[in-house]
Every structure is written in structure tokens, then in C-alpha cells.
């Protein structure tokens, strides 16, 4: 599982680099820059493109799917795929069921043929029907915290709500951590370790606990 921290909003080079370094020192394996309402950046793609030259971890984006025309959304994703080939994920928020096909068409139109796109695009949704609709278009369904279901492939969760994650039976290749206050993400070391061991279902964690914690 990739554990990604949502980066707090900063307006200066020094500020954004400091925030990134803080997150990495606290255990982030990747960073996410989020637009409203998940974050406060005016443009996640810009900030990610700016920051990625200064950090050594992947920088993903969480885009407001309603903020721009799908062709501009697709253009930003396409350019990030070219400039940040190791950036693993693009999260799109605010895409309703009727927007999925136009979005897919826009992305297919703007993406150079040699770059894959659907499997690296995660769409935030609520409910099993929505996640199925997303998966059926080839996108990856991302759910918020307790909304996760058996169709979910990644989870977005606030650190204050982390306890809800332990009750879930599913495992996810991507976990995005944020805070209600949109400030720096700070996770207790034990919780971070527990998260990183959720590559399989809870059983593995239980095995580790039963064995006295040896890893």
C-alpha cells in the first residue's frame, strides 16, 4: 500500500518544500496536492509540477472535477503524465455518474497513445453503485473512509477517523491521509505501521500481533 499524505496549502517555495519534507519525515511515501473542497490549492497540477522537481517522493493530485472543462482536466493530467512519469495517481473529485463518459472521452482524446491513463485515475465516489460505474469505465474507485465497499480500490481518510479503517475488511493499494483542519498530517507511528501492513486483509496484522510483533 502506498500511504500518501495530503499536503497543506502553502504560498511560497520555502513553505511548500518544508511541508513536503515534514510529511516525508512523518512517513509519507507519496504526497497529494488537493483542490477544493478536499484541499485549498487553486491548482493541484501546477503545485504538483512545481514541487515534484524538489522532492524525491511521488506527487499525486486531487482535482476538482467540476472546476474546469474536461479537456482542461485531461490536459493537466496528460501533461503531468509526461512530466512526472513516476507520479502514480490522479484523483478526481466531484464527478457524477453522468460526467464519467464525457470525462473518459476527454481523457482519451488528449492523452498521447503511448501513455496509459485509466488505471492511474482514481475517482472519488460514494456508494457501491457509484464505485461500480467508475470501475466499469476503467477508472479506479476511491472511497472516503467509512464509505469503502468491496468495489473500492483506494481510500481517502482523515487521521481523526482512522479507527474506522481498522474495521474494514478490505485492503487497498492506496491510502490517502488528510486532516479535517487541512493542516499537516500527523500519524502515530503505531498507526502508520499498521496502515502499511494492510496490504492484505486484517488477518496478516493479527498474525503479526499474535507472534509478538516480530516483523
Amino acid at each position, binding site marked *: 500500500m502506498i500511504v500518501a499524505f495530503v499536503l497543506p496549502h502553502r*504560498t*511560497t*517555495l520555502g513553505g*511548500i518544500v518544508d511541508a513536503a519534507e515534514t510529511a516525508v519525515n512523518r512517513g509519507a511515501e507519496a504526497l497529494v496536492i488537493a483542490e477544493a473542497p478536499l484541499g485549498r*490549492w*487553486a*491548482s493541484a*497540477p*501546477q*503545485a504538483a*509540477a*512545481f*514541487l*515534484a*522537481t*524538489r522532492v524525491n517522493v511521488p506527487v499525486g493530485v486531487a482535482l476538482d472535477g467540476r*472546476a*474546469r*472543462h474536461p*479537456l*482542461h482536466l*485531461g*490536459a*493537466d493530467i*496528460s*501533461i*503531468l*503524465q*509526461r*512530466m512526472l*512519469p513516476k507520479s502514480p495517481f490522479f484523483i478526481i473529485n466531484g464527478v457524477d455518474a453522468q460526467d464519467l463518459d464525457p470525462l473518459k472521452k476527454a481523457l482519451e*482524446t*488528449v492523452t*498521447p497513445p*503511448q*501513455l496509459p491513463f485509466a488505471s492511474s485515475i482514481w475517482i472519488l465516489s460514494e456508494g457501491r453503485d457509484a464505485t461500480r460505474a467508475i470501475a466499469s469505465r476503467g477508472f479506479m474507485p476511491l472511497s472516503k473512509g467509512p464509505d469503502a465497499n468491496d468495489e473500492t480500490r483506494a481510500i481517502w481518510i482523515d487521521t481523526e477517523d482512522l479507527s474506522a479503517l481498522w474495521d474494514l475488511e478490505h485492503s487497498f493499494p492506496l491510502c490517502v491521509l488528510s486532516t479535517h483542519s487541512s493542516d499537516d498530517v500527523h500519524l502515530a507511528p503505531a498507526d502508520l505501521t499498521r496502515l502499511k501492513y494492510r496490504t492484505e486483509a486484517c488477518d496478516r496484522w493479527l498474525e503479526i500481533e499474535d507472534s509478538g510483533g516480530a516483523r
Partner: protein
Amino acid sequence: MQATPPPRPHALLYEESLQEARYAESVGIDSLWISEHHLWFDGYCPAPLTTAAHMLGATNTLVVGTSILLLPLHEPQDLAARVNELTSLSNGRFLLGVGAGYRREEFTAFGIDRSARGKLMDSHLEVLRGALGPKVEMWVGGTGTKAIKRAARFNAGLLLPPPVPVEDLAGKIGIYRSHGGQQVGVMRDVWVADDADQAAAQCRPWIRYAHSQYASMEGLKDVGDVQRFVSRAEACSILGNADAVTESLLPIAALRPDLLLFRIRWVDQPTDLVRRCIELIASIVSPRLQNVAA
């Protein structure tokens, strides 16, 4: 059609561009400019702000601008927020250059009436004037009298693209300045190599290819029209060794533009040749032109 370098993977191309930006900064080039088009077969950059952000993040003093961003295709309040944020992050190193656009397919794809682009420029510039922060410097690109007057009216710099013939430049600059315009930028297609013949042999196929593509973007279909378009562009291009290029640029430098933009990338040119061109511009051409302007 003349041979052009084969297309390379986009990730490699953009990485090379990033390294070229760093190199340009290291040899004293002032600025780098990025343009915008959508839905072109070779993936022509459709996101100039995000690309500019990448170049700004990788450098420390290089100024990066858009020449040009297609303003009618953007929502101006959102654009202002993006530009303000990028200006802040880069400590004022971003310049916003905008233009009306021309390619029908782009307007159609965005669901915007192309015939309204002039009015959209005016309304969007009005919004930008109120929403952009004080540190944002705006430029307007165009060659027609309306575009030139628009740049002056909105207190923006004027970017004159190639291929405006040298003999026409003074008149256009005069219109702009007579309407209160303050800053002029002139762009030329330029290629500098160690040897004049080498420069021509390298570059002519690239320029012809690129402008044949621009002719298609303009909607030209008649072969004669395309050939005339390409010939006019080629006639305005400046190719040669450093001495010859400097000599050719002197009449433009004598008009005392505030910016001279050299377009040196048209296709997937080998990066070592691009770097050599940048080096010759920085070390020979630019210093000699600065003396003219002084």
C-alpha cells in the same frame, strides 16, 4: 516533405526540456516561454500553466511565461486564481501572455463560438484586471490593430509573434505606443549554429515542417496557400552562425523592444543542438544586441 527528427517518447522530451530550461538559466538567458494548443496529433502542449510550473520549480531565477495562453478557452476567475498562486510560489517569476486563438477545432471542442473570441478577450481581460494580484505581469499577443489596441487598453505588454515582417514591426509598435502601450516583445524563429551552412541545413526542414503544421491549424487546405504561408514564415526566420544572426536581428533591436523572444524549438530537435543554440545566443548574440539597445 523534408525529413524531421523522429518523434520521441513524451516523458523524454519533457525531461530534456526541463534540462534545457536549467541550462538556459545557467548561461544567463532571462526567460522561457510556453505556448498552448489542444487536440493536436503530436500532443502539442495543452496545459501551459502546469508546464510553466514545472519549469519554475526546477529553476531559481529563470522567468517563465506563456506565449500564448488561449484566453477565450479558459474561465477567467479560475485562471486568475491559478496565476496568482503560481506567481506566489515562484516569487514573481511568472509572466502571463494571452491571445485570442484561431484554430476552429479548439473552439468547437470547448463549445465556444470562435467568432466571439474578440469579445471574450475583452471580457476575460476585464476580469483578469480585477482579479490578478499586483505582482502579475500580463502580455497580450497579436498582430492585428484590434489586438494591438487591446493590449494597450488593458495596460498589458504587446507580444508580436513571427512571422511579422521586419518592415511592418515599426508600424505596429507605433500604434501600440501611441495608445499608451508600455512594453513590447518581438518573437522571431531563430536558429544559431557554429556554421552558417550547418544552421540552414539543420533548421530549414524543421521550420518548414512546423509552419506547415501551423498552416493546417489555420485551416489552410489549398497547397498553394500552405506553401505561401510556409514561405512567408521561412522568410522571417533568422538562421545562421552567431555573427549572421546578430546582424539580422539588429534592425529589430534598433526598435528597442523590451523583450526579444527567440523561438528555437519546433520539432523534436536533438537536445545537444538546442543547447548549443542557447549557448551561442547567450554568449554572443544577446550581449551584442544589448549594446544596440543601450
